[in-house]
């Protein structure tokens, strides 16, 4: 699975990396972020591209797994 490590980055970088990944990767993508609001922005970005996702809390933030494109 493609992984995007956006931990420690400040906005809007996590969203920019997500946007880039969602555009180039049709398979599943795992995105790591630090802040709750970054998780929400990453989720919005996924939704905006019509992709489904599952978010979980990690030790140092959140992981958003974006499903493969249908």
């Amino acid at each position, binding site marked *: 699975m493609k992984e995007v490590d956006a931990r420690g980055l400040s906005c*809007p970088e996590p*969203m*920019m990396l997500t946007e880039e990944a969602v555009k180039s990767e049709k398979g599943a993508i795992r995105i790591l972020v630090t802040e709750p609001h970054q998780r*929400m*922005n990453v989720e919005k970005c996924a939704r905006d591209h019509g992709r489904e996702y599952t978010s979980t809390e990690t030790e140092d933030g959140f992981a958003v797994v974006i499903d493969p494109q249908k």
Partner: protein
Amino acid sequence: MQEEIRLTQFAKHGGCAAKIGPDTLSRVLGRLPKFSDPALLVGFETSDDAAVYKITDDVAVIQTLDFFTPVVDDPYTFGQVAATNALSDVYAMGGEPKIALNIVCFPGDLDPDILGEILRGGADKVREADAVLVGGHSIQDDVPKYGLSVAGLVHPDRVYKNFGCRKGDVLILTKQLGSGVINTAVKAQMASPEAEKEVIRVMTTLNRKAKEAAAGFTVHACTDVTGFGLLGHCSEMAEASRARIEIGTEGIAFMHGAKEYAAMGLIPGGAYRNQEHVSGLLDAGDADEVYVDLLSDPQTSGGLLFAVPEEEAEDMLRAFERADLGTKVSVVGRVTDSGVDRPAICLRDKVEMG
């Protein structure tokens, strides 16, 4: 001048999005000693925009201070935005700015010409406001910051307060919303040139004409919409007025591209903090998420929010049109109840008048 300097890269949060969250602020400020003086007409208990101190029966002084980190890359524009925003607090109290002082933080290793441009931008706005700029204070700091302390004058009987709105009042906002989201999109290099142009125009428009056009109308409450977003400032107004406010999302003017960028996830962290702060008061109904995000979006140098009696609202809108503000004026909602035990803000598609 050094090329390739992007001022916004210095700042984690730019503009009014750099404000400390409302929850944190109220916790800290609550521990400060209370000051009282019979001449103090407006203090900070009601979270208003500035202090107002009565000198005579005809004259009161308004004192305010506002500064922030870069919200745009161009130094001259940053100076204009920061000064416009600082001057706005005086207009929001119904006053005229008279004296301004610069407050500056600037890295010692950056080209001083950049600082010169920031100050020139600020000075031009102070001149446009017909106030005088008379020095200020500067220190070295890793992150550039700029703003003004402004003193203004107002008649003690004509001070606009951020509370006092009454049942039936119409809420009119004098600038379109979306600057936090658009500035985030600019930072991400995803904003259209039109959106970028519009946000700069809106952020550098003085609230002077709006304030002047409102003279002669009954203003029950007024504030400028800045870092806490429309919902945050409405919640301050609702709480301080013990009012219930209905916001009609369909009537609100937004900047070009704001909805699109918000849906993409280009939302500043401050918007989520603002949402949390108003959550106890907010009934979002079935409003689209994008509206909740945009109404919580921290505005940099936003417009004036007026609560006016319904029978004067149409005339006031026409007065704003005649004054040619250069921004989009919209009816954002109305006060459905006042003097209530539980102040609230309700989001609806449309608000019913009458």
